[in-house]
């Protein structure tokens, strides 16, 4: 899959700044402060296709617009799912939406996870916190096309057991014989009997062949920096490590400059980057 924007908006003949109305079909509470919105198009509208890793600009009418990663299944074009944390005015308003309410959607934007480049390789997915949301479509894709991949391993870290995202789904994945799922928390609380420690400590448990492994990583930037170091220590090349960067996207089409990261616009050139293409600016404080 080429690392370019999908152009779905343009190919549909819709201007890049025009929102399309979607209806809320379900609001699902994931953790105390995160939730998922399942939306569908109004009858008669075009099919909404996206690739794993892409994001949309979601507009709460009269409140504002924010970029949110798509967290649903790319093979189910009839349902568009986003997962986010309730942290500001727009996402707070989004959390209050009810089934049947309407939301404006622009997108999909950005570069996808390299799920096709990964064919024939082992794949290790490393997610931290809400970083699992933009990786979930890639996991759906990998599992839907399972025979094209070697080993598939998911390593997921959360702050506490209560903050584990998509808990039921993780249990389903853990029960599969064709993928390995390891979960850890930074701080154990309550009756938690699972792993304790940061997500990087799980990397040594991934039974992959490092020279023939592609890694997809998403989480807080500091977590991704440590994850890169650990993956390299295990023998992965940085050309086989992909990251999803988060910046303050506004226009979504590389015009406004809000999400500029060095010479790149995260909304257009990212959010998914190959590690060797981004690492020189990755930890620079000025950016």
């Amino acid at each position, binding site marked *: 899959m080429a690392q370019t924007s999908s152009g779905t908006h343009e190919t549909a003949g819709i201007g890049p700044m025009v929102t399309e109305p979607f209806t809320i079909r379900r609001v699902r509470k994931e953790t105390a*402060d995160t939730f998922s919105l399942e939306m569908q198009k109004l009858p008669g509208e075009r099919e909404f296709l996206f690739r794993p890793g892409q994001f949309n600009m979601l507009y709460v009418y009269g409140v504002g617009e*924010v*970029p949110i990663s798509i967290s649903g299944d790319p093979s189910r074009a009839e349902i568009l799912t986003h997962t*986010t*944390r309730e*942290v*500001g005015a*727009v*996402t707070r308003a989004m959390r209050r939406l009810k089934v049947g309410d309407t939301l404006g959607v622009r997108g999909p934007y950005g570069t996808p996870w390299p799920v096709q480049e990964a064919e024939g390789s082992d794949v290790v997915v490393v997610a*931290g*916190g*809400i970083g699992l949301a933009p990786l979930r479509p890639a996991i759906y894709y990998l599992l839907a096309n399972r025979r094209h991949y070697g080993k598939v391993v998911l390593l997921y870290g*959360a*702050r506490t057991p209560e*903050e584990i995202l998509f808990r039921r789904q993780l249990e389903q994945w853990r029960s599969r014989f064709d993928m390995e799922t390891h979960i*850890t928390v*930074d*701080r*154990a609380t309550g009756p*938690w*009997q*699972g*792993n*304790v*420690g*940061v997500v*990087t*400590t799980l990397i*040594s*448990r991934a039974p992959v062949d490092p020279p023939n492994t592609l890694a997809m990583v998403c*989480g*807080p930037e*500091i*977590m991704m920096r*440590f994850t890169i*170091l650990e993956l390299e220590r295990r023998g992965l090349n940085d050309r086989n490590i992909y990251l999803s960067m*988060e910046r303050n996207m506004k226009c979504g089409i590389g015009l406004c400059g809000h999400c500029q990261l060095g010479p790149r616009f995260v909304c257009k050139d990212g959010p998914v980057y190959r590690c060797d293409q981004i690492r020189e600016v990755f930890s620079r404080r000025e950016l």
Partner: protein
Amino acid sequence: MENLERILGEHPFLKGLSQDQIAVLAGCASNVVFKAGEFVFREGEPANAFFFIRQGKVQVETHIPQKGTVIIRSRRDDEVFGWSWLVPPYRWHFDARAVELTRALALDGECLRTKCEADHALGYEIMKRFLMVIAERLEATRLQLMDVYGHGSN
């Protein structure tokens, strides 16, 4: 003994050691089993060993008054844990407890220190490996302290 040598020789932590060096380590090794809930070691006790977990799970924890037990880290199959045997005054800094039935190889710390003093080449190899373990723990602890799963502002 031959079986212990084979197990140690196949462990990634000891990769690169000569067969003679593995044989020396095996002379300090023994099989141990811990039931679920049993302490592997307790804070303040003499640190006389380190462990290769063969099967099972151990958690490193401490007790904080008014707060109870705080789990710091868990360890699973094939992982190495325990490095207080290398650092004077050779006492455990935390508790370690088996979460489930755990089988491990224990390497006697005093035995190994004596052998490393007598054979500095072996000692250097062991030190290099434990330096990696300690660096990994330090890095993980720093990341844990950063509490990285913070909030944005949208």
